[in-house]
Each structure stands twice: as structure tokens, then as C-alpha cells.
């Protein structure tokens, strides 16, 4: 069976500046994988390539066995960007943000049906925002806002969930709810999760694999226990990761 995501020898450069060099890895169904690396290591570019937002110069990416551009049921991929920017003055409710994730699956001019509303309610409940569904996004904390965007990614029941620094600046309660949502996705629905983050303490015990990217190359790809056995804490890895993993990109 094809992995949910396979990255094979991907290379990418901006002009003459190489960013990714022969990057290869895969993510299988029901796997919980974290991707870490110092600033400038190529994480963001890799994320754009594997989501089909940028085209690699060498190698290739396959989502559910096909190139990203050829994937027809795009709802199978859920994406939580680093921080969505909504003009503060624009009144947007939490429910509207989550419902917007349902549009592509429903069709651009079709009215939402009962199953769409059920999916929105379920996604809101999974991140603990049911009571705040009608509240304006600008009135929420950073953590609550981020949970709204996570609910938007969950609303279609994705088989692969990709998250870019989802807990940056998020309070402890929100981090615990966030962890519970991801574990529920992986354990109960068999979804694959690829988490790009500097802060892994909230999910350190739940990860199946840890991938470290350094200078555009994969420096480590193994269960996180291999690191923690060496006394490396994932929660504060910026300070205590070995020099060969951290340091300047």
C-alpha cells in the first residue's frame, strides 16, 4: 500500500541558493510525525513543496500515491498554516472560519446541508470551541484563534493533517486540547499527522517519529525515544539538542 505522503529526493533552490537537498521520507496512515529544524533549515519550503504550493526542481512528492496537483479529493489533506492573518476590524466568527473549510468539498455555489453543519459542530467540539462558535475571532486569545483554524482543517475528516507551528504563542490549556485533538485523529480515525514545530513538549510522548532537517538535508529520522534516551528533551530542544542537530542552519 502507498504511504499517505512520500517525499523522494526533493531538491529546491531560490535562484542559486539551495534550500532542500535530496530530501526523502514518508508518512504512513496513522503515523504521528514531527518535523523540526533550526530557522533557515528549509522546513517551510519543504512544507510548501509537499502541499503542492511550490514545485521541486528535482525529485517528487506523492500524496496518496499521486502528485499533489493530480490529487482530486483535496479534502483528504488538512492544513493548519502558521498563523492566518485576518484583518482585525473584519468581523469573522469562529463558526464562519470552520465552515470555510467545508466549501471546497461542498462546491462553490451549493448551499450547506445538514451534514456540513454536523461536521462543523463536530470539529468545533473536538477543539473545545463549541461555546464560542458565534464569537468574533478578534475577541479570542491567540490560542483560541489557532484552535479555530485547527478545527477548520479537521472539518472534512482529513486522512493527512499538516500543521505549521500550530502552538506558537498558545496557552497551556489550548496546548492540551490541541494534543488531545491530534491523538484522537491518529488513534481513532487512523489519520496521519505531520507536525512542524519548535515546541514539541505537548506531544512528545505521542510521536511515532521525529525528523530533523538541517541545512536542507535530513539529519535525523527515527522514533523520538532515540533522542530522549540520549537525554535530549523535545520540549526545549533549542537549548539541548546536540550540536549536530541544532546550531546554525
Amino acid at each position, binding site marked *: 500500500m502507498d504511504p499517505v505522503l512520500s517525499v523522494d529526493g526533493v531538491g529546491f533552490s531560490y535562484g542559486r541558493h539551495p534550500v532542500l537537498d535530496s530530501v526523502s521520507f514518508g508518512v504512513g496512515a496513522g503515523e504521528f510525525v514531527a518535523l523540526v529544524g533550526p530557522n533557515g533549515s528549509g522546513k517551510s519550503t519543504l512544507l510548501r513543496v509537499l502541499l503542492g504550493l511550490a514545485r521541486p526542481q528535482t525529485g517528487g512528492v506523492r500524496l496518496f500515491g499521486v502528485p499533489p496537483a493530480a490529487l482530486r479529493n483535496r479534502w483528504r489533506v488538512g492544513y493548519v498554516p502558521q498563523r*492566518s492573518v485576518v484583518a482585525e476590524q473584519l468581523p469573522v466568527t469562529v463558526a464562519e472560519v470552520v465552515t*470555510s473549510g467545508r*466549501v471546497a468539498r461542498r462546491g462553490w455555489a451549493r448551499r450547506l446541508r445538514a451534514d456540513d453543519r454536523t461536521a462543523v459542530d463536530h470539529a468545533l467540539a473536538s477543539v473545545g470551541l463549541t461555546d464560542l462558535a458565534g464569537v468574533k475571532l478578534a475577541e479570542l486569545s491567540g490560542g483560541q484563534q489557532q484552535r479555530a483554524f485547527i478545527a477548520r482543517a479537521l472539518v472534512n475528516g482529513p486522512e493527512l493533517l499538516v500543521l505549521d507551528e500550530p502552538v506558537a504563542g498558545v496557552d497551556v490549556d489550548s496546548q492540551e486540547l490541541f494534543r488531545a485533538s491530534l491523538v484522537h485523529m491518529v488513534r481513532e480515525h487512523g489519520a496521519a499527522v505531520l507536525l512542524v514545530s519548535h515546541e514539541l513538549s505537548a506531544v512528545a510522548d505521542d510521536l511515532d517519529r521525529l525528523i530533523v532537517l538541517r541545512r536542507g538535508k535530513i539529519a535525523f529520522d527515527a522514533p523520538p525515544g532515540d533522542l530522549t534516551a540520549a537525554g535530549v528533551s523535545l520540549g526545549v530542544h533549542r537549548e539541548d539538542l546536540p550540536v549536530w542537530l541544532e546550531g546554525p542552519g
Partner: protein
Amino acid sequence: MLGLPWPFDTEYMQLALGAGLVVGASAPLIGTFLVQKRLSLMGDGIGHVAFAGVAAGLLTGLSPLWTALVAAVIGAVAIEWLRLRRRASGDLALAVFFYSGIAGGVVLTGLAGSLNAGVLTYLFGSILTVSPADTVTIVSLGLFIVVTVGLGWRTMFSVILDEDAARVAGLPVDVLSLALAALAAVTVVAAMRVVGVLLVAALMVLPVGSAQRLAGSFAATLRWSAALGAGAVVVGLVLARWLGLAPGATIVLVAAATFLATASADSLRRSSARPGSPLRADA
């Protein structure tokens, strides 16, 4: 002619009311999306290109409304294409068309020998002189905008909320962005005779600025902005006939006064509220 009370008791005022209501309601609908995309001045840029289209119509003897529509759609799509391809930043792309449009319009009207009061009706609007045929065209364009936004607002909302997330979800972001630009062009041309190309962006943006201080959701912002835009047209027409003022500019001043009133009330409300929201759990 309908049996409406003063000041809408004459045929020209009733035509102005019909055209004005549709434009007043439809222009802010498109403006709501442009404001979120930080392209509030796009209407201005398109308006200047539309002016070149009007001049081309005067030069060739074709209907200025339709030549303006063609020029505006081409200009709007080109502006958005430059932005999407990152060939130019949003404001630089607007500036290029802003100045090229107005310069082209002046040159073409000069060639046509039409640099006179006729041109001013397009620059500053002339809602009291719209003909029944003009009204039918304006109402048709306006209804097209209202129906399109009514059907597709959730999709357009998804795109303006986060273009990358919308692409990952499979929405044709480039096509939708170009379609929004084309709708903005249709709006500009529909509003051209009401407030003029120099003031058209005001009718697209000012009611939105007021609406987002009154509404509690994006859907409500659309409804409020359409209602406030239509209200500005009605009040503007009443004041213009009562006081003998230029109607297009009066409509815009009413929209601006509404914006100032809502912004002031919002500031007072915020300053009187306790600092920090009970919903905020982290800094």
C-alpha cells in the same frame, strides 16, 4: 412613472433612485472582499482604467458604458494577474494602471475633441441624467453582482481568509481572484454614472468600514454594508435635491459621515469597556 412622494416624485429622480439603490447595495458587497484583501483602492485604479474606456467610446462612437466595461475588466484582471504572479506588489500594480488609465483617458478624449462637460459626467457622476436604458444596464450589472455574491460568498471568503489554505483545499484561487477582480470592474462601471470614476471606490469601501463596526459576523458585514450603501444613496439623493447639491458627491459625503459616526461610537465603546476581554485566556 410611480406615485412616490417628494423628492422621488419625478421620473428622473425615480430612475436615479432605482440605479442608485442597486449600485449602493452591490458596490460594498464587492468592497467587503477587497478591504479584507487590503486592496481598498482597487476600485480607484479600475475607475481610472474605465475612464480610458469611456474616452475610447467617445472617440469611436461606441457606447461609453460598454467600452468602459471592457477596459475595466481587462485592467482589473491585469492588476490581479500582476499581484498573483508577484510581478508587482498590490499597490504598485494599482499605481501603474491608476496613472496610465487617467493619462490614456485624457489623451483619447483630446483626440475625440470631447474634453468637455460630457466627460465630467463620467468623472464625477451624473445620476440625475441617467436614461431608462442606462438604468436597465446599471440594474442588470448590479443584480449580476448581488446574485454572484449571494451564491459564492462563502467560496470567496475562504480565499480571502487564507489563499494558501484555500489552494491546499483544492479551490482554484487564481481563477477566483481574477473573477473577483472582474466583478470589481463590473461594479465600477455600474457605479460610474452614479458617483463617477473618481469617487467610485468610496462607495465600495466606506459602507464596509461602517458595517464592520456594526456587524457580528462576515455574513452580517455583507448585509450591513449593502444596507448602508443603499441608505447613503437614498439620503444623498434627498439632500442633493433639497439643498441643490451635486448628488454623486453628496452620496459619498453621507457614506463618509456614516463611517465617522460609527467609528466614533466604536471608539467610545472600546474606551469605556474594561481593558482585556474575558474570552482572552493568553496574551
